C-alpha cells in the first residue's frame, strides 16, 4: 500500500518536473536571435521571391509565432487556445516542422520507438556486462582479473564513444561481417514486423548497443566493485565463512544484495548519459532514431521539431528515474522516502 502511495506521489512530482522542463526547453529553443521563418523571409527577400513571403506570413499566423513568447509556450503545450482552439502537445499535436515541411509527428513517428529500443538495449547491455564483471573484480580484487577489468573500464570511460563507433563499425564489418549503418536492412524499411526483419534489427543493434553502453558499463562496474568490497570486509561475511558457507553463496546471498541497491538507484544517473550517448552515436552511425533529426533541427532553428525531441528525451529520462525509485523501494524495504516519524 505504501508503495502504491509512493508511486503515485512520485508520478505527480514527475509530471510537475516535466512541465518545468518543457518551459526550460522552450526557452532554450528561443534563445537564438530570430527564428526559422524570419530567416526564411530574409532569404526570400534577398532572392526577390516576394510571393513566397505571403505563405511564410501565413505560417507565422498559423503557428502563432507572432504572439509574445509566454503565450507561444502555452499554445505549444496546449494550455492555451491557439488560432484553431486547443491544439498543443497535450492534445497530441506536436506542431509543424518548417525544415521538412511536414508535421513533427510524421517525422519522428517511427524514430521514437527505435530510440526507446536502442536505449533499452543499452541499459540491458550495461547490466549484463557490469553485474558479473563488477562482482568478479571485487571477489578477485588485486589479481589480474581485477586489473584487466579496471583497465578495460578506464579505457571505456576515456574513449569518445562516437570514435569507438566508427572504429568498431569498420572492424565489425571487416572481420565479423556485421552490417553497416542504419537500424535495419533497407529492404525492411516500412515493412510490417516479420522474423526476418527482427533478425535484421537485432544484427544492426549489436554495435550501437555496445558503443552506447560501454562507458555506462565501465562506470557502473567500478561502483559495484567498490560497494562489494565494502560489504565483503564486514564481519558478517567472516561469520558466514567461519560457519562453513560456500564461496558462491557467501558472496551472492547478502553482500551482493546489499551492493545492488546503488545499482538500481543509479538508473537515474545512467539514463541521461546513455541517452546523450545514443543521440551522438545515432548521428555518427546513421541510426534512424531521433538523434539525427535533432541535430538537423537544431542547426536550422526548426523550433517545434527540436523542442519536441528535447522534451521527449527529457521525458524518457524522467520516467526511467521514476521507475528506478519505485523499484528501489520494492527491492529494499528499509528505504523510506517519507519524513521521519
Amino acid at each position: 500500500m505504501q508503495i502504491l502511495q509512493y508511486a503515485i506521489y512520485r508520478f505527480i512530482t514527475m509530471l510537475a518536473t516535466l512541465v518545468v522542463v518543457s518551459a526550460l526547453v522552450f526557452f532554450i529553443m528561443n534563445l537564438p536571435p530570430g527564428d526559422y521563418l524570419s530567416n526564411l523571409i530574409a532569404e526570400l527577400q534577398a532572392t526577390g521571391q516576394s510571393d513566397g513571403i505571403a505563405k511564410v506570413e501565413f505560417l507565422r499566423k498559423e503557428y502563432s509565432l507572432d504572439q509574445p513568447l509566454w503565450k507561444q509556450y502555452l499554445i505549444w503545450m496546449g494550455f492555451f487556445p491557439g488560432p484553431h482552439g486547443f491544439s498543443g502537445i497535450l492534445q497530441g499535436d506536436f506542431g509543424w516542422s518548417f525544415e521538412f515541411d511536414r508535421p513533427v509527428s510524421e517525422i519522428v513517428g517511427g524514430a521514437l520507438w527505435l530510440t526507446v529500443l536502442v536505449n533499452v538495449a543499452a541499459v540491458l547491455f550495461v547490466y549484463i556486462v557490469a553485474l558479473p564483471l563488477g562482482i568478479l573484480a571485487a571477489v578477485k580484487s588485486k589479481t589480474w582479473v581485477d586489473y584487466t577489468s579496471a583497465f578495460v573500464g578506464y579505457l571505456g570511460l576515456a574513449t569518445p564513444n562516437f570514435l569507438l563507433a566508427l572504429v568498431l563499425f569498420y572492424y565489425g564489418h571487416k572481420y565479423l561481417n556485421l552490417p553497416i549503418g542504419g537500424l535495419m536492412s533497407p529492404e525492411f524499411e516500412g515493412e510490417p514486423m516479420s522474423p526476418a526483419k527482427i533478425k535484421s534489427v537485432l544484427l544492426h543493434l549489436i554495435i550501437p548497443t555496445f558503443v552506447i553502453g560501454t562507458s555506462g558499463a565501465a562506470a557502473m562496474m567500478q561502483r559495484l566493485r567498490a560497494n562489494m568490497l565494502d560489504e565483503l570486509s564486514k564481519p558478517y561475511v567472516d561469520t558466514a565463512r567461519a560457519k562453513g558457507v560456500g564461496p558462491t553463496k557467501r558472496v551472492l546471498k547478502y553482500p551482493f544484495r546489499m551492493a545492488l541497491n546503488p545499482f538500481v538507484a543509479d538508473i537515474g544517473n545512467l539514463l541521461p548519459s546513455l541517452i546523450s550517448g545514443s543521440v551522438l552515436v545515432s548521428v555518427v552511425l546513421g541510426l534512424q532514431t531521433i538523434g539525427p533529426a535533432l541535430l538537423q533541427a537544431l542547426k536550422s532553428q526548426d523550433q517545434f521539431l527540436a523542442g519536441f525531441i528535447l522534451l521527449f528525451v527529457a521525458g524518457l529520462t524522467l520516467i526511467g528515474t521514476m521507475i528506478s525509485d519505485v523499484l528501489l523501494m520494492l527491492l529494499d524495504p528499509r528505504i523510506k522516502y517519507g519524513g521521519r516519524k
Partner: protein
Amino acid sequence: MSDLSNQHYVDDAPYDPNEDIKALDRPDLDAPNWLLIWRKFKRHKLGFWSGVFLLLAYLSLPFAGFISPYTPNERNADHLYAKPQSINLWHEGSFIGPYVYPITAKPDLVNFQWNYIEDTSAPAKLKFLCKGREYKLAGLIRSDTHLFCAPEGATVFLWGADRLGRDIFSRILYGAQLSLTVGLIGITVSFILGITIGGIAGYFGGRTDWAVNRVIEILRSLPELPLWLALSAAVPSHWGPVAVFFIISIILGLLDWPGLARAVRSKFLALREEEFVRAAEMMGAKPERVIRKHLLPNFASHLIASAMLSIPAMILGETALSFLGLGLRAPAVSWGVMLNDAQNLASIEIYPWTAIPMLPVIIVVLAFNFLGDGMRDSLDPYSDH
C-alpha cells in the same frame, strides 16, 4: 668522560631529544596536513605520474608554436593526405643524424587517391632551431623559430597530413591549446556556481535548500548532450572563434555545477552543526565569512579532487560538440574539430592517421581520471588503504 660532582653519572655525548621516537613516525608528528597528503599522494604512482604528465602538457601549451614544425592552417597542396613519415638516424649502415626521406605524390587514377613514394636514395637531414612560418609565442610574442623543421625539398609530417595537406602533429599541438583549456574554464564556472549555490542551500537550509534541490534535480535529470547541442546551436554563427570558444566552455560549465552543488550542500548540512561554526556565529561572523573562512577550507581538497574528475567530461564534451559541428569551428583548431574530418568510414579505412587526435583525447582523459583517483585516495592521510 663524565661529571660525577653531584653523585650522578651524566653522559656528556650530545643528546638528541628525538632519539626515542621511531624514525618512521617522526616527520609525521607535526607535519601540516597538506604535507601528509602530498606524501601519501606521491606513493600513488599512477596518479602521481599522471599529474606530472598533465603538468608538462599544460606547461607546454604556450610553446606549441615553437615545438611544431608547421603552423596549424598552413596548407601543403602537394601533400594532401600524406602518410606519416618516420624520422630515422641511420642511413645504409652509417649514422647521419635525424633525417627523413622526401616523398612525392602520385595520383592513383583508379581509386582516386594519392599514393606517396619515398625517395630512399636521398635522405634529407632535419634542421633544428630553424626559421619557418611566423607564429605567436604564448599568443603574444612574434617569433619564427621552430624547434625543428623540414629540410629543403622535403616535408616532415610526423603523424601525416589531412585533406588540405596540413600537418596533423602540429595541429594536435595547437589543438591542445583549446581542447585542454576548455576544461579549465568550464570547471571554473562550475566551481563558482556549485560552491555558491550549494553553500547557500546547505548553510541556510529550509526553503532555500528545497528550491535549490528541485533545480538540481531537474538539471540532473536532463540528458547533457542534447542540452549542450541546443545551447551551442544558439551561439550566433558570425561570432569569432575566441568568443565561441569562451561561450562553449561556459555552456559546458553551466550544466556541470549541480553535482558539485549537491556535494557542497550535504557537507555543509553536516558541518554547520559543529561547535566551531556556532562559535564563529556567536562572535558575530556574517554568513559569507563563515562559509568562506570556516566551512570551505574543511573540504577544499575534496573539491579539487572532484574537479579533476569532472574535467575529462568537459574535454569529451567539447570534442563531441566540435565533432558534430556545433562546437568550435574552423579556422579554430581543437581535437574535436580535427576529428570532424575523420567522421566517415572512408577516412578510417584509407587514411587512418586522420583519427590520431583521438589518442591525445584518450590519454588526457585517462590521466585526469588517475590523477583524480590518486588525490581522492590520499586526502585522508591517517587512513591506510
